[in-house]
């Protein structure tokens, strides 16, 4: 409880604008328990959460992330199609010039797939049994890093002008 509580304070009081997370389901996977539990937990922890709903294509998810200007994309996959779907998502993000948005993945991922997924650029992979506290804290850190990078870039640009 205490760690959840302190994260909530950091989320609510840290950024000028609340951190925004896209929780996404892709492909035909209907197992949405994990996505909904995590979405709910992130919201309770003070994040702004956008949930895509079911049967989205990776391309739709990438577009939504850009349009919604999110800080983190959290994908939940339990149907085994993770490598295929994540490849497409990461490719589309690159194409949109949005590969600075950190992507995390949760679900039933066989251990041998962890390395290939990480090499696609996925920042965190949460296997079943990961605590909400851990997910929230890691998502918060990634959001914070992204905001810091953006601020640094913004001040650089001001300097150049």
């Amino acid at each position, binding site marked *: 409880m205490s760690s959840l509580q302190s994260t909530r304070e950091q989320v609510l009081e840290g950024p000028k604008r609340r951190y925004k997370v896209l929780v996404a389901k892709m492909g035909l996977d209907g197992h949405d328990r994990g996505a909904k539990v995590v979405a709910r937990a992130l919201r309770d922890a003070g994040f702004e959460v956008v949930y895509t709903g079911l049967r989205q294509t990776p391309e739709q998810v990438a577009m939504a992330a850009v349009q919604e200007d999110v800080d983190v994309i959290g994908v939940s996959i339990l149907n085994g199609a993770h490598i*295929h779907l994540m490849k497409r998502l990461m490719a589309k993000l690159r194409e949109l010039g949005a590969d600075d948005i950190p992507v995390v993945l949760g679900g039933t991922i066989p*251990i041998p797939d962890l390395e290939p997924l990480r090499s696609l650029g996925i920042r965190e992979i949460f296997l079943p049994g990961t605590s909400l506290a851990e997910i929230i804290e890691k998502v918060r850190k990634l959001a914070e890093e992204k905001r810091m990078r953006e601020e640094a870039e913004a001040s650089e640009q001001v300097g150049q002008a």
Partner: protein
Amino acid sequence: MKRLEASLKKWESETLPQWLERMPERMESFTTLSDIPVRRLYTPLDLKDWDYLEKLGFPGDYPFTRGIHATMYRAKLWTMRMFSGYGGPEETNRRLKFLIEHGETGLSLAFDEPTLVGIDPDDPLAEGHVGIEGVNVASLRDMEVIFDGIDMGRVTTNMTINLPAPVLLSYYVAVAEKQGVPYHKIGGTTQNDPLKEFIAQKTYVFPPEAAVKIAIDVIEWSVKNLPKWNPISISGYHIREAGATAVQELAFTLADGIEYVRQLIGRSLDVDTFAPRLSFFFDAHINFFEEIAKFRAARRMWAKIMRDWFGARKKRSMWLRFHTQTAGVSLVVQEPYNNIVRTAIEALAAVLGGTQSLHTNSFDEPFRVPSEFAAKIALRTQQIIAYETGVADTIDPLGGSYYIEWLTDEIEERAWKYIDKIEAMGGMLEAVKRGYPQKEVTESAYKFQRDLEEGRKFIVGVNIFRSDSIDEARNVPLLEFDQEEIEERQKRRVKEVRKMRNQERWRRALDNLRRAAERGENIMPYVLEAARAYATLGEIMGTLKEVYGVYVEPPEY
């Protein structure tokens, strides 16, 4: 009773306080997995006006609490029906034969997601999904391969298929026709439960009303044509896996059943003609006594519903016959071999609860569909329970336990409250459209996760006795198969099927199906003809989508 009451008071005031001081209890309060408070001790006093004949009766007699058959497992063990299938029809044919060879007594087909949502393997939406979570079936040709060398007159087959149930059942019947098996020998089950898809599993296709109409078509046609077929398996399993409590699982499943019975009666069918063919499907979770009590309460409640609400006269119409699957959601990645133990305990609960058929999960399922090695251990678990433990030698051995009877009553009472609420909304179809059960399930899932994190519930190796090592998980030998190769093979085959079939017969079959659907007729005879004409799953479902439309889930955020 008075003497007992006095003795209990004496125990509570004299014996207990000394012990509580010397040996304080582990927790302030104890609850079941579903948060039903559990007291320290149960005695006959907890069963106040409890009447044996009213609450239990005898096995094979109303209200069937102790079992639907008078001889239960002493006569016939439950059917060992392992949910299986992966890859293409060839891989699945091999797996079925492997399980039969190791003593499995019934088949159960798991389909991949493209099949579950009724699209062909070359549909863009299917890309990357073909054959992963179950077998891909796109036409009669695939079903022929799955049952190659398996006599369909001698096995019974469960097909976990919902919205496309009319199509898969038609493929099955068409293959049986080719094998020369007469209709009265075709046995098995189609899950065919669309309501739970909106609540939980989410492999929906058509909007709720149309989805229910089609499911009722399958039931009506099967009752008239396939006397041994269970045309529906009213399923709580997926509702539970999505996060429902045992009470919610029970209540929502029975409420779904009530909706289907009403719809069937609405077609002017006599309840005793179809009720004996309705079957159920439940989850067996890890909280041992709660699960046993749930199964016993389910039988008693359904018997009452059928007799008192719907006026069933035949005993068989009042039977709640059910398949059970151990709880996939209870299995974890951490120290995965512990999952074998969890599954064994869950299977034991299902057997003590009087199940007719059982699937035991494999320990590697948090990673992927089971390897042969893991599937065999899961099957062996059932065989050990059946042949070594002796639990199948007497009927309902826990009947009369003060705790079990109290808990059965308690679960029943809580479930009726949900059913009353759903009835007040106008039945399950209305409740689903309002999103009521969906929200209840999400709430429970979230609450359970919080309970885990805050130490009110436990999973060994996860939030208690953590070993912080994934080495064991790393060493689990996983089923290997080349998904891309299978997808290519399935794409190729569906294209060949489209070319080789009699185009005129195929065209006519689909046209007739469309017109029958538009007229509101029972679609089954037309789907069967389309199946025989090698219409693909995507084509048949596509034709139905044109008439009935498609469902999009309303956003929750």
